[in-house]
Structures are given as C-alpha cells and as structure tokens.
C-alpha cells in the first residue's frame, strides 16, 4: 500500500461518510423535508455556505481561527489512517495505531478550544471551556474501552485487532465496550445529546461567530471526525473488514454507515444534559464502568 493509495482511500471514506451522515441527520431531524430533498441537502447547504461572505469580529486571533478547521480535519484524517479499510495491509500497518488514534482524538480538544478562543467573543469562549470540561471527564473512559480490545489481540495495531476477531466480534465478547465507546465518541465529536459547546443555549457556542466557508469547513471537519470515530468503532468492535461473501472494503463501509446512522438517530432523539451533570456522569459512571470492562475482559481473555 503506497502513501498515495492510503490518502485516496481515507479521502473517499471521509467524504462519503460525511455525506451519509448529513443525509441521515436531515432525514431524521429535518423539519418538513421530503425524502428526495434530503439527498441533495448536503450539496445545497455546502454551496450556500460557500457563497456566503466570511464575516469577522473585532480583533480576532486570525491565525487560530484559520488553523482550527484545518487542524480538526487533519486529525480526523490521521485517525482514519491508523485503521485498515479494505483488508490486511502489511506495509501500511502502524504498530502503535491505537495510540496514534487516541492522540489524534485528544488533540481535537485543542482544535475546538482554539476555535472557541479565536473570535474574541464571549459565547464561543464559553463553548471552548465547556468542551474542555467534557473531554477531560470522558477522555480516559474513551481511551480505556478502545484499549480493552487490544488485550485479547496482544497488539496495539488496529489491523491485528481486526484480524483477532475472525471467530467472534468484540461487541459480543465485551458487551460494555461499544455503548461506552459510542457515548464518549459522540461527546468527543460534540455530536448528538452532547453538543454542549455548540448548544442552542449558547446561541451556537463555538460557531456563533463563524460563517461562510469557515463554517462549511468546520462542519465538514466535524462530520469527518464522526466518520473516523465510527470507522474505529466498526474496526475494533464490529470486526472491521471481516465478513462473508462481500469484499472487505464493502463490509467496512456498511458497518461504518450503520454506526453513523445510529449516532445520527441518537443525536436527534436523546435529551441534552447540562455540562455539570455530564462531568459527574463521566467520572462517576463511565470511568468505573470502563475499568470494570477492562478487568472483566481481561479475566475472559485469560
């Protein structure tokens, strides 16, 4: 697998997945839209935003504002590179892929925080602080449940973890893993019930001052981040490219799409909780559950 091949694969996954996510979100949550218009909605919305002027505020930190969407998109792509899509790739395998993924997902905090900081406006700044509180409280359970899948595989490489699920998916071996992963992943992508940094109670939060191409880039980068998180969920819990009859890459696409649609569904139907409640929930409920998951899975793997 060459670098160019990996790049094209990742780009195709991210763009296609972002489209699926946007359509699913529109079908589930759009008000008064028929089914056919939902399929053209992402394109319409993108061209609408691209034609809008890019507004600015008084004395913004322009460098940070320009950097943040590109950084978010870059992190989503780096996370996706660590995941095999079409099948085992001996050359392209990253031995510590799980750590690379975890590092990329933690730096999302940096991208979102500087995006909130940049416009020198109160509401985005509060959104940034909120997101910091969220990630600091669920970052550890997120890494823990992903790490738990490395125990039976005896490797930090995502390819090896996928291969080790040839007999049974880790969804069935570690039933606690996927729910915790999806909750924390939605929080890291500030999606669904956990879109507190962008909440309507903050009048848009971190995107309150963003418009035009900048907002379009940010939205796309966030959708790409959701795709990366779903790809990882599909790879470590649902067996990735493993499956009968169909080619490997199609299995990856199907499983990722299922997770994306699931996240779109829960994102639109669950009730939001306050950030204080969420911090408490992350430390007192999710973290002990993730530790239980680690030790029970370890016991089973013995």
């Amino acid at each position, binding site marked *: 697998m060459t670098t160019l091949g990996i790049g094209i694969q990742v780009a195709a996954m991210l763009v296609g997945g972002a489209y699926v996510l946007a359509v699913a979100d529109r079908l589930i949550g759009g008000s008064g839209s028929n089914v056919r218009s939902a399929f053209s909605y992402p394109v319409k919305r993108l061209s609408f935003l691209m034609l809008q002027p890019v507004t600015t505020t008084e004395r913004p930190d322009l460098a940070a504002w320009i950097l943040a969407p590109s950084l978010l998109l870059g992190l989503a792509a780096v996370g996706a590179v660590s995941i095999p899509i079409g099948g085992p790739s001996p050359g392209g395998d990253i*031995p510590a892929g799980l*750590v690379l993924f*975890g*590092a990329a997902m*933690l730096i999302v905090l*940096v991208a979102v925080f500087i995006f909130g*900081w940049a416009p020198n406006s109160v509401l985005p700044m509060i959104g940034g602080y909120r997101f910091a509180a969220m990630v*600091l409280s669920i970052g550890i359970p997120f890494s823990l449940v992903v790490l738990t899948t490395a125990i039976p595989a005896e490797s*930090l490489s995502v390819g090896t973890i996928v291969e080790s699920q040839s007999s049974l998916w880790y969804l069935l071996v570690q039933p606690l893993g996927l729910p915790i992963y999806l909750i924390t992943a939605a929080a890291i992508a500030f999606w669904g019930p956990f879109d507190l940094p962008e909440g309507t109670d903050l009048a848009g939060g971190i995107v309150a001052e963003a418009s035009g191409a900048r907002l379009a880039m940010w939205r796309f980068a966030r959708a790409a981040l959701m795709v990366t998180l779903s790809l990882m969920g599909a790879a470590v819990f649902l067996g990735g490219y493993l499956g009968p009859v169909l080619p490997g890459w199609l299995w990856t696409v199907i499983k990722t799409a299922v997770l994306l649609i699931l996240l779109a569904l829960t994102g639109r139907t669950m009730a939001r909780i306050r950030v204080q409640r969420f911090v408490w929930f992350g430390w007192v409920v999710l973290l002990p559950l993730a530790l239980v998951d680690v030790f029970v899975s370890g016991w089973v793997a013995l």
Partner: protein
Amino acid sequence: MNPGLLSYFLVSAFGIGAVVSGWLVFRTDSMLRAAYWLMVSFVAVGAMLVVLDAQFLGLILILMMSGEMTIMAIFMIMFMMNPAGLNPMTMVHQHRTSMVAGVGSFLVLAWVGVVAEFPDRPAPAVDPTAALGEELLGRSMLIFESAGVALLAVMIGAIALAAKRGRFGDADAGSVEPEIDVDTGSRT
C-alpha cells in the same frame, strides 16, 4: 548503525521545529499561544522519537501533552491579568543572568554530546512495546506500583490544595481552623 538519509532529514526538521517552537513559548504575548507552542515542541520531540523506532513512546508523549497543555492554557487564562497579550508585556526578571545560564548550559551539554564517544549498540528491530510491558510487569514492578502511590498522593494533594470547599469552610471565607474557644478567664 546506519540510519538513512531520510532519518537525518526528518530528525533535523523536527529538531529545528522543537527548538524554534520552544523559543517562541517565551517570545509570545498571548498565553494561549505560549501553551500551544510548548505543545508543538512536545509534538516535534514525539515525532523524533517515532523516527527513532520508539513509536509507542513518541505517540504517548503527544497524547499526554495535548491534554496537559490545554489544562495549562486554561490555568494561564485563569491567573494572568492579560491572557491574550492585547497589550504587549514582558514579565521577566534577571534577564541577562538567565540568558547566560541558558546559553551556557546549551554550550556545555552540546560540547559533551559532540565530544564524548558513545558505544554503538543499536536497538534491535523487535516490538519495543511488548518489551516495555514485560519490564513493567516483571523486573520493574515496584517502580510501576510506586508510581501508582505517587499519583494517589498527587491526586489527594492537588484536591486538598486546590479545592474551594476546605475542611473548615470555603476558601474565600478564609477556611481556617476555628480557634479553641474555652473560657479560662475569671467569670464575671
């Protein structure tokens, strides 16, 4: 050992990145930028570790530092009068002494690094993470467990120092031990 030309190029590039961003930490007025320049320095060093076949250590360094630097930025905003550096400021003392100390320590250490002869025993190309795990659970188990105790001490110490609700009431209200109020004087 014979590292390839690409390794030399990557190490030089990341090295320049680490040094320049480390220098910018103390040259910018914005506290947020200072914190994130420091993070860039750590990421550059982490990338160098990846080039040196210590992939796990390099990536874990980046993972640790991204969280730590955001916390650092938040604390800077909390404690600085002028966190964004909207007015230029220099908050330095003993500038010349520090400059001399910095340059001096660089020269001494670089001289040692260049002049000293080191044995040439490169690391074998096996999975170093597994070796680290064996070391952690076997010979160095005591280090590992005492790190746990140290971290416990840090947690309790940090909370005891920083928590607003002290044992004797809120920190804002003094949080001091109530004086012993025993009436020993003569009754009137």
